[in-house]
């Protein structure tokens, strides 16, 4: 167990160092990317350029710049933005984390619950009209781009039908703090949760259905039938239980990526100032310290959620335990 944890930590360190170097190099070492020219603005005189270079430390060698940046992120925590000088990056990321976590965890609960329900019902009624209907519904969910769906949701709930009984409860866009206003937090997030989850509900429902149907062909399902168990019990306790492994693998990947900032489209559409939004704005202004901090945070979560998946595997599949 200790060895596994150490190995995980080592892996995480490796990923973080690799990604940070890559981001750093892309920013500084790509041809034509002179950050001081960009910061100084158009038609800046050579004196100003030189001043900028000195003031931001761009005159030092690359590895020194890299090490100073890492020190400022991990040790002193006082890394400041290149664009808004004096704006501290690390606290900004920590402020954005609860927003992203609220959005993604809520959506994850929705997509796991509905994904399992849809996949199981479709597999149980395979070949019937209900199965076909659910699968088409899933496909529709997968096909709708989240930014489009989000805008349509906003149009409907914030504007066109906002004054009807159906959507009058929808608060204006933006994030409410869970500790000061839990009710507002919940209400503002309902629409974003569903918008983000719909794609995954369709995807997970279809994947689970396929896995279940495969599992139902297994010998142990025939044994379970020969034991005289009910079809429901066979489906839920035998087939579903063994099908959950690939479901969990997928979940680990998607969840990690979303927490790491891949929910950015949803965040932008619903004006939630999460990590995705932070990254997006930093990319627009090419603000390296912010990009670096959010990318490191994202890779941390991707590795972390994959480590969690491995732990869940141990519970799901006894064959992993001894291995």
């Amino acid at each position, binding site marked *: 167990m200790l060895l596994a944890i150490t190995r995980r930590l080592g892996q995480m360190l490796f990923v973080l160092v690799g990604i940070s170097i890559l981001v750093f190099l892309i920013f500084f070492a790509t041809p034509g990317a002179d950050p001081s020219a960009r910061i100084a603005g158009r038609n800046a005189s050579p004196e100003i350029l030189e001043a900028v270079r000195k003031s931001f430390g761009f005159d030092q060698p690359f590895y020194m710049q890299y090490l100073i940046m890492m020190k400022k992120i991990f040790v002193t925590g006082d890394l400041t933005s290149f664009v808004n000088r004096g704006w501290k990056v690390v606290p900004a990321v920590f402020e954005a984390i609860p927003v992203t976590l609220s959005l993604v965890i809520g959506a994850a609960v929705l997509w796991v619950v509905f994904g399992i329900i849809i996949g199981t019902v479709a597999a149980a009624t395979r*070949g019937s009209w209900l199965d076909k209907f659910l699968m088409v519904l899933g496909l529709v969910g997968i096909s709708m781009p989240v930014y489009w769906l989000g805008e349509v949701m906003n149009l409907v709930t914030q504007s066109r039908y906002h004054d009807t009984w159906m959507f009058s409860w929808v608060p204006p866009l933006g994030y409410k703090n869970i500790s000061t206003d839990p009710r507002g937090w919940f209400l503002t997030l309902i629409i974003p949760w569903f918008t983000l989850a719909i794609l995954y509900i369709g995807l997970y429902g279809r994947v689970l259905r396929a896995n279940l149907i495969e599992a139902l062909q*297994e*010998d*142990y399902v*025939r*044994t*379970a*039938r*020969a*034991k*005289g*168990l*009910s*079809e429901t*019990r066979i489906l839920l*306790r*035998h087939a579903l*239980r*063994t099908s959950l492994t690939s479901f969990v693998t997928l979940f680990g990947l998607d969840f990690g990526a979303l927490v790491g900032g891949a929910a950015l489209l949803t965040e932008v559409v619903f004006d939630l100032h999460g990590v995705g939004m932070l990254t997006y704005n930093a990319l627009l202004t090419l603000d390296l310290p912010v990009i670096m901090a959010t990318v490191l945070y994202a890779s941390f979560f991707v590795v972390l959620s994959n480590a969690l998946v491995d732990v869940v595997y141990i519970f*799901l*599949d*006894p*064959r992993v335990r*001894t291995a």
Partner: protein
Amino acid sequence: MLEVRDLKVSFHTEQGPARAIDGVSFDVAEGEILGVVGESGSGKTVSLLAVMGLITDPNVVIEGSIKYQGRELVGLPAKEMRKLRGREIAMIFQDPMTALTPVYTIGWQIAEQIRAHNSISAKQAEQRAIDLLAEVNIANPHEAIHRYPHQLSGGMRQRAVIAMALSCNPSLLVADEPTTALDVTVQAQILDLVRKLQKNHKSAVVFITHDMGVIAEIADRVMVMYAGRIVERGNKVALFSNPLHPYTKALLDSIPLLEGERPRRLKSIPGSPPALLNRPKGCAFAPRCANRFEACASVPVLPNAGHDAACFKVNP
């Protein structure tokens, strides 16, 4: 106890109906061991799966009559059938490696079956599982109930499967090639076990196999199947000492002898079994039979008593 009459099982396929079982009739008496022998595809497994109501293919058509203790099983509602399955009629499958759900302990799986048919507490079911595992000669049953299938050897798993099948004291046990996937020493142990348990539990056993040696070891009566029909049936001793049907003869001839001069080559049956969709009109074995004559163009009947064969040479 079990009376099967004119059982026909066919599957709708794109090339038309494929008749896997074509008019099979047999009885199983209380407490006997009936051996069913035949090549792959002869319909031995399908006919017993039909008895168990375990053919889940939606394209299947089952005709004829299967009576278990006077009760008609063909067309019995799924719910009623489920009450019989596992309690009255139990089944052991061929491959113990895949027959158990990998994510549950064997104790859990045995208790699950017991509790599906009896209203007893989890504790009592666990105790019963321990007793059953002890009965099938698994060492340390207290510990073994907490083992997962992948932690057991093939022979151990098959013992666990047998323990599970016996958990509700079934009066009929269907064993579908339970020794085929095991190595020979374990095979002998499993055969001994089946015989011992059959005596203790007084169950009737239908033992499906393609191995004449296993049949000789365990069966009271033997039924030889070929291409979806029964070609010969009789008491084991009579059938082995005096095989009537040319197919049975050929099967026995293809077993190497332990004594006497060793033949340079074992005899084999020329040709191969007919494809499901392309069976000969008359006697299905005729194209491979050395003794065929004009009469073989029509279907031979199997007389319904004693030791007999579905062959025009035997019953002109």
